[in-house]
């Protein structure tokens, strides 16, 4: 589990093939294939409403895909959220879905649900294993809170955390299920530049723990810094996939974000403008 990016022995963690999701007449995700390998950070970008979150929901069993299958480390997953988590895929939510009225520590403890077995009898009779299991769970949860920098707030209610910390807590809670693949849905939405930097560091650290990461994000600079590979979803279809620089320069991607250039004429100029703006803002960010 200590694979790094340079290690040659990469295996496929996630293999989604032909995933299609239709809502009535609307096809939110159309025939998408995607693989994620060990030690990788893969980005998933696309304009609003492209179907990114829907794709995540298909991967994690919250939606039953109309077609296609999702395999984790070679085994096809049933479309049941708890079984997907059990298998080793954990996720965060775009619109934060913490257990608002539980404490920070309790949230993480809930994340450990699949990795502990103590049932009702064990709890009622306080069987010998119970106390030990609770101890271990609590220790592991505290470790994760240290890791995400929330240890000092372990006893606060989740609802009272500031926004950035709520996102971190979602990540800590997801990590508590000891996943092999972490799905992050816009982890930096609503964060300021410093917090975004910290989130980058955190995601690198997660990768270094041997957990593959698939991340949805609108912040191109963030994706550029972070991802080994980027896939672009437009209107439910995956149009491009490749290294970040390649994807960023791809005409179809630019067209998807900015609209089709008028008669092909101003397109190049516009693209250059965007490039310049991106470069500018990158240096600006580095100044801070």
């Amino acid at each position, binding site marked *: 589990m200590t694979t790094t990016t340079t290690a040659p022995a990469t295996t496929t963690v996630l293999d989604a093939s032909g995933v299609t999701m239709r809502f009535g007449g609307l096809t939110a995700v159309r025939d998408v294939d995607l693989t994620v390998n060990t030690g990788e950070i893969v980005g998933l970008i696309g304009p609003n409403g492209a179907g990114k979150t829907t794709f995540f929901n298909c991967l*994690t069993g*919250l939606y039953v895909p109309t077609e296609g299958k999702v395999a984790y480390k070679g085994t096809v997953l049933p479309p049941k*959220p*708890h079984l997907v*988590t*059990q298998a080793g895929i954990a*996720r965060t*939510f775009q619109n934060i*879905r*913490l*257990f*608002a*009225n*539980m*404490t920070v*520590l*309790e949230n993480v*403890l*809930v*994340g*450990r*649900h*699949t990795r*502990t077995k*103590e*049932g*009702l009898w*064990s*709890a*009622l009779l*306080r069987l010998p294993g*119970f106390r030990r*299991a*609770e101890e271990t*769970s*609590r220790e592991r949860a505290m470790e994760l809170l240290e890791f995400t920098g929330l240890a000092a707030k372990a*006893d*606060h*209610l989740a*609802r*009272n955390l500031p926004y950035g910390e709520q996102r971190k807590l979602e990540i800590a*809670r*997801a990590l508590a*299920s000891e996943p092999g693949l972490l799905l992050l849905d816009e982890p930096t939405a609503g964060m300021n530049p410093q917090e975004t930097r910290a989130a980058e560091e955190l995601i690198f650290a997660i990768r270094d723990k041997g957990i593959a990461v698939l991340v949805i994000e609108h912040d191109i600079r963030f994706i550029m810094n972070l991802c080994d590979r980027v896939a672009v979803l437009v209107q439910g279809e995956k149009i491009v996939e490749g290294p970040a620089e390649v994807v960023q320069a791809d005409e179809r991607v630019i067209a998807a974000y900015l609209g089709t250039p008028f008669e092909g004429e101003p397109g190049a100029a516009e693209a250059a403008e965007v490039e310049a703006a991106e470069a500018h803002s990158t240096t600006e960010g580095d100044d801070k």
Partner: protein
Amino acid sequence: MTTETPMNKTTDTATPVTPPPTTPLVPLPHPAARALTVAGSALALIGTFLAWTWTKEFPGNLTVTGYPGGLQVLTLVGALLTLLFTLSGYDIPGLRWLTPGGKNSPVLLSALGVLATTGYAMGAISYELGGAVNLEPGAWVSGIGALAAVIGALGLPTDQPHDPGDPHPHHWVNLWFRLRHALSSPEPGRAKDLPAWAEILIITGGFGAGLFIFAYGIRTEYSEAFIGFLIIAAFGFSAVNRAGLLKRLSALTAKHRNVTLAAAFVAAICFPFTQSNDQFALIGANILIFATVALGLNVVVGLAGLLDLGYVAFLGVGAYAAALVSGSPQSTIGVQFPFWAAVLTGALASLIFGVVIGAPTLRLRGDYLAIVTLGFGEIFRITMNNLNGRSGPDVTNGSNGVPNIPDLELFGFNFGVPHNVLGTELTRSGNYYLLMLLFTAVVVMVFRRSAESRIGRAWVAIREDETAATAMGINSFRLKLLAFALGACLAGLAGTVQAHVSYSVTPEQYQFAGSVPPNSAFLLAAVILGGMGTISGPLIGAALLYLIPAKLQFMAEYQLLLFGIALMLLMRFRPEGLVADRRKQLEFHETGQLDVPEDKPLPEGATGVAKAGA
């Protein structure tokens, strides 16, 4: 000898801060207002020693001079409380501990309580005996004293500074807001640590006082006394709460949780020994049954967040199962199981019924679940009615139910006859009360232990956000079914005792809403009124909901109406219930400030669920 530094002087004369306005409602100088309150409450107190009326026709015998009785005792207690709180405001050393939170709001509240009880007593005497001429001077002395105390208390500065915003244009609305403001108080600070034995002594004292008040309420023999009791108890309770004493006590109980449980248990054991009248002990036993079932429902509603409107059916299943195997001559089975086997039968039958009903319905969410469980609850009752040999096979004798359930006999102890224990007589209901208490203790244990475990956390997670919970690997259907089945099983347990206490089991005992608790609506109300997710909440809620209708039978016709009004008022002013767990309090009263836990290591097991519910 140290030389005086000029620094000391300059620091003393810091820039004067204009104190925020704490203007009272009645413009009186502070010393005068306090003196008036003291004088008024003392007068009210003296008045209780005089005769209030001339005839014994008014219940409670208020004609004796020199010996307060009936409603006079209530005024006496209230006046004493007011006097103590007022004197505490003088910073008298031995009394300062009485008001760690608000100083003057408890005075106002208890003074209002005295005025209300005394006023009620005077009104009731005049009404029942036909005119105010029936009042003797004693009543007037107490009444005028109480009025003076209230006026004095209104002249005391408010505990919380005013919001210097615009006053409401309408005078009366403004006055109402100012009155409510005068009743608000600051939170008490953290108490300094006492030695453990002293803290435990305080907890014991608290529970002793609680038991005494509760037993007094049950023992009231006529409805006038009970109404007076309710008035003074409500005002006194709020006053003690405003003074910050309840916060202090709950901080202690949270610290010594096992001691608290033990103290509560011991206090509950003492109860039947305070009741020589079987009628009152029966009320106690029925309250315990009701409260235990409410606590079971709290697993389903409070922890897992499943709205179950047919819960009383599980009590019914347990009771019917126990009745059928009780050896009653009218039982269609005609076997007599030993009690332990009957208990297992009842619990198991309820459990199976719970799983059978839960398996199809728990796939529904929210309102749908509520409606379906409501339906199943009624189906149970109707089925029991129809299994009478005519509409269906004869299992339950239809609407006649299973009567003549014999009394229990355990280890040679016959529950049906009075026993003499330690010099006091324990009546039949007292016996059953103690048996039921054992079951209550089991249910409290089950609730507490399951709430503070992986399973309990999963339930709360499902309640908070079912989708997120499943994404965290929780098999929500299985866990909801577990909560439902556990809840059913606990109700079934209580049912097995209920069958024996009430001699007979009939379908009409298990309705959705009726005038006699337990029924599904009252059970849910007990949980919500008491405080969801806590242990003490449903117990207190059930006690109130049972006691009030039982004591005020002349209002039986309006009972559901009053019940509805009370629920609405409660939801408006205290949506988290009487006993709030920490979460709920934060959920319903946005204070705008972050919840900063105290900087101390939490006691072991503190990540459980029923934190505030001791």
